[in-house]
């Protein structure tokens, strides 16, 4: 047991030390806020940073309302039972699907069938589908953990189901719903496979001008540098720098989620 613990900790420390020592060399304001230069041998990652931000934001704009509404339906309306069962199987299958499959589906569905091409829109929608099962399951749990007493009290006062959802269940469950949403942001921001065929481009000196443009993205940028790079001595350090930025981004997002969750637990009084 103790050995396992030490091993795990060792790997983690090695990983972090490596990431920070290698990544920190190239990290600077310039690195964050300028575009790549000289066929990605120099310069920064600004377009990729913006691209990841836009992709993530777009996926959340789509997935959050859809996921939350689905969870509300499942917990409060949920009829007929066979439909609920089918939906649950579908959600759990989605949750267990490898992300590359989402990429292929996104390409077939959004890029080709709907004609969105390789674009911010296609990538955002593909990531939204990836985030959907996480958001649905989490929201459902959050709503179900609201004590039944509150629901009964609300209905007994003459509230309709809709009023009970909007005035009692959602406000009570909101902090937990938000925590789950933030965790799914972390997951979406780091995904490579779903955007590979749907949104990402190797190299662009310009920021996307609209939903129809291709974008750079942090995880794909790392992939591109490491697989397609022609000048490893200059490009590997940039890849480490990009990795470190992505890592810090995801860690701080998770930290925010943990902070929100613990502050809820402290305040909760039922």
């Amino acid at each position: 047991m103790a050995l396992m613990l030490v091993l795990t900790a060792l790997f983690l420390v090695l990983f972090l030390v490596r990431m920070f020592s290698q990544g920190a060399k190239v990290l600077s304001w310039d690195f964050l806020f300028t575009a790549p230069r000289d066929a990605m041998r120099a310069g920064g990652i600004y377009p990729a940073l913006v691209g990841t931000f836009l992709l993530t934001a777009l996926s959340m704009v789509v997935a959050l309302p859809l996921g939350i509404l689905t969870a509300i339906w499942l917990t409060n309306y949920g009829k007929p039972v066979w439909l609920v069962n089918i939906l649950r199987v579908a959600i759990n299958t989605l949750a267990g699907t490898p992300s590359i499959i989402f990429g292929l589906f996104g390409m077939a569905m959004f890029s080709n069938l709907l004609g969105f091409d390789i674009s911010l829109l296609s990538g955002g929608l593909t990531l939204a589908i990836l985030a959907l099962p996480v958001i649905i399951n989490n929201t459902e749990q959050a709503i179900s953990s609201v004590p039944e007493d509150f629901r009964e009290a609300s209905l007994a006062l003459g509230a309709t189901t809709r009023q009970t959802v909007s005035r009692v269940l959602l406000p009570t469950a909101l902090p937990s719903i938000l925590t789950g949403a933030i965790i799914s942001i972390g997951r979406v921001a780091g995904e490579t496979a779903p955007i590979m065929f749907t949104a990402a481009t190797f190299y662009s000196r310009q920021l996307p001008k609209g939903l129809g443009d291709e974008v750079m993205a942090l995880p794909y940028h790392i992939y591109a540098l490491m697989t397609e790079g022609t000048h490893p001595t200059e490009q590997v350090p940039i890849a480490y720098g990009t990795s470190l930025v992505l890592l810090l981004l995801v860690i701080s997002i998770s930290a925010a989620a943990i902070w929100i969750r613990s502050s809820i637990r402290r305040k909760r009084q039922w």
Partner: protein
Amino acid sequence: MVDIQLQSLDLNLWFGKNHVLHDVSLPVYKHQVTAMIGPSGCGKSTLLRCFNRMNDLIPGTRIEGRALLGDADIYAPKADVSKLRSRIGMVFQKPNPFPKSIFNNVAFGLQIQGGFSKAEISNRVEESLKAAWLWEEVKDRLSSSAMSLSGGQQQRLCIARALANRPDVLMLDEPTSALDPQSTAKIEELCLELKHNVTILIVTHNVAQAGRISDQTAFMYLGELLEFGPTERVFTVPADKRTEAYLTGVFG
């Protein structure tokens, strides 16, 4: 002759195949306290929940017979359940205020009904808190969380919350079973005061409590209404042997 505010007529209820209530006909007289007593599982809470249709929430529930609020059929196909529930207030066994402010708890019923001005709501909140004997204790902190109140205060808040709808009937489902003796005494006295304005139907495990506060007592056993009458009569000369056995503590 006293008016009947609420009644069930030959009411039968099944949860799935389980026949829970058998031909129950219970009148609840206007501006009186009616107590329902009986051993656990006898159907008294289920009967209570028939009157505000809270049993509708349980899948597989089937009801035959009638329930009336005044002259209105509670189970009429076109009955407005929300409106019905706003006319029949309910207080639960465990105090269940919302995790909202004291003010917003009491205002909840009016807010969902809509059509009340801010001033009206705030007047009604004050009126209801006064009626539930809570005003003096909370008037300076209406915006603090209801969760910060003691158990007894929370239960009186739930009473105030139900009263804010100005209901015809207030139903209480073992309202003091989670409370200490002092809070219990306060709620009992409160019931005696409230009955001048609202009809009270209370389910209780506590026989002595029924004796202290009720005008009418209904004794339920295995889903049947075995005995109903003025509390004094039921407690002194019960017509059914099983009532007598229950009252004297032979079972229960």
